[in-house]
């Protein structure tokens, strides 16, 4: 009797869990599905009240129009270069700084690390104006460098990799030192290769953040040919009217590379989130 009631309650719990998860998944996927459906509608249908769910007729030409409105190849290239250099810089400088904070003893270490932590806790928007002034004074606005500039150093990356290096037993570094490594060799021949998972996670986070960064590219590069996908898409929004089907079609085209990358690196992406405890 007891066993039967236990089984029944377990079954009930499973049904409730699945139902909650399915509802959650539907809520999460709804905007994406809505975007696909809108990209295939006409302008009046996209703004119709009450809204239609399925398009009355499939307007594929919205994609052609989006491609005509924006230099997509340029935008892909700019976004790709920005992501590439931001990732390279974040990984290189965060690894070196993280290693120094975790493994080396030097004067002012605590103070410097405190500054890194403070930088992490401040909203990035407050740095936009001084950073823009610096880029503009260097005469580098409307360049790829301008897009990369705020991502050259990542406070989160420094903190994240410092924690990783602190988790590596000190003896490994000491063994390398005794084996004949100098400080640089200890770092790049022995310690850096041990941070693979964390570096992969940092790469993914930096890439996703750079890809979705809208404010900075919009501020620093006003030339459409030097814009990124996100800032380019923003130009599709008019002051008075917006062609939503074309905007959605453009957004879908912009998403494509990230979706493909996610499908390839799904495992590392999930591992990365798990290792940072992030959401």
């Amino acid at each position: 009797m007891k066993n039967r009631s236990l089984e029944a309650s377990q079954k009930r719990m499973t049904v409730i869990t699945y139902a909650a998860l399915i509802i959650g998944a539907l809520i999460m996927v709804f905007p994406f599905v809505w975007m696909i459906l809108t990209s295939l509608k006409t302008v009046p249908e996209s703004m119709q009240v009450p809204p239609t769910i399925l398009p009355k007729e499939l307007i594929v030409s919205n994609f052609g129009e989006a491609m005509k409105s924006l230099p997509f190849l340029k935008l892909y290239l700019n976004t790709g270069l920005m992501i590439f250099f931001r990732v390279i810089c974040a990984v290189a400088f965060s690894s070196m700084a993280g290693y120094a904070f975790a493994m080396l003893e030097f004067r002012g270490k605590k103070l410097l690390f405190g500054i890194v932590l403070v930088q992490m806790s401040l909203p990035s928007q407050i740095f936009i104006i001084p950073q823009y002034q610096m880029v503009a004074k260097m005469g580098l606005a409307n360049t790829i460098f301008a897009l990369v500039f705020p991502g050259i150093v990542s406070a989160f990356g420094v903190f994240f990799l410092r924690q990783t290096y602190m988790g590596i037993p000190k003896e490994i570094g000491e063994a390398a030192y005794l084996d004949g490594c100098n400080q640089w060799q200890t770092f790049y021949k022995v310690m850096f290769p041990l941070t693979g998972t964390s570096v992969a996670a940092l790469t993914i986070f930096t890439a996703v953040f750079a890809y979705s960064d809208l404010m900075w590219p919009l501020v620093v590069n006003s030339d459409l040919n030097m814009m990124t996908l996100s800032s380019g898409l923003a130009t599709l929004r008019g002051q008075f009217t917006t062609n939503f089907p074309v905007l959605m079609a453009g957004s879908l085209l912009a998403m494509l590379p990230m979706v493909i990358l996610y499908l390839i690196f799904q495992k590392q992406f999930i591992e990365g989130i798990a290792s940072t405890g992030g959401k």
Partner: protein
Amino acid sequence: MAALNLKGITKIYPHSGDQKKSKKKAGESEKKTNLQVTDQGVIAVQSFDLDIKDKEFIVLVGPSGCGKSTTLRMVAGLEEISGGELYIDGKLMNDVEPKNRDIAMVFQSYALYPHMTVYENMAFPLKLRKVPKDEIDKRVKEAAAILDITQYLDRKPKALSGGQRQRVAIGRAIVREPKVLLMDEPLSNLDAKLRNQMRAEIIKLRQKINTTFIYVTHDQTEAMTLGDRIVIMKDGFIQQIGTPQEVFDHPANLFVSGFIGMPQMNYFNAKLINEDGKYAVSVENCKVVLSEEKQKNLAAHNVAAQDVTLGVRPSHMVLAKQPGNTLSATIDVSELMGSEVHFHANANGKDVVVIVPTMNADGERIDSFHAGDQLNLTFSGNVCHVFGKDGKNLEF
């Protein structure tokens, strides 16, 4: 292959900023470890003097926090030497980089490079020294053969057991043919069976490679079985240096006598008597005249009659058939260990341990004693140790 001279080596860990602010905190840490604390900081090692001969196997032994690992790390160059001089083959090494000292070290946690295979781990120090590839291959394979790890050369450390990992760590150290091989508690992470096995392996290894060893352990069995000489440390000070037999037979003080030997030495409050120029010790009803050697040593130091702490090892206590010139004790626990019996007894309020063979010379079995039975104990004058009020052996 090298001789080492450590002259007055001292290590002081300066107070951190927080400790400077709170003197009370520094006092607390002093209580925990008994290390001396001065204005300069905590003194982890003090006035460490030791001359190590070429190819000698020296074991540093002592309880946790005694400064043995710190001393080893100063020899390695991983810790700065606060005072004193370190010479390797006559050359002052205080400010020489670890990689230029021609030493290798085996760590307790193995410290293998997880991203490299066993072969790469062992070849790594040679690659850094730009040794030709053929030579690297030859030396790695030779070392692997000595340590019986040839079949694991392609594996990563995570695919090896604890014992195999420790062999690789030793391999990485010996492949460089260092002048001095340092070992920091290399067997502590292994289970008891593997530890015994690896201890024997280290003895064999020592016969195969000609180098000077400095070995740190807190395990007295390792110290006794491996070392040519043992350095016993406590609270940053050397307590005694000697061969395993010397420190066992002639402990310099109460600490050494208690630290070396299992089970621990038994202690009694006793009186040292000098009658007609002959020294004797008296505990309760038991009076024992000391051996000739001890008479000579005590006379040489002009030791006067006084209250002393008498130490007798459990295996040196003898069961007397009849009460008389004996110590009486009541058995609390009797442990039969096969060839011998360990009696945990109470002698006039003092806990004593007595180890006796299960069968005596007359063929009598003596495993019939039980808790509550009375024992009559005695000992001879050549196996007891007489310690003064300050804990020092009066013979020294």
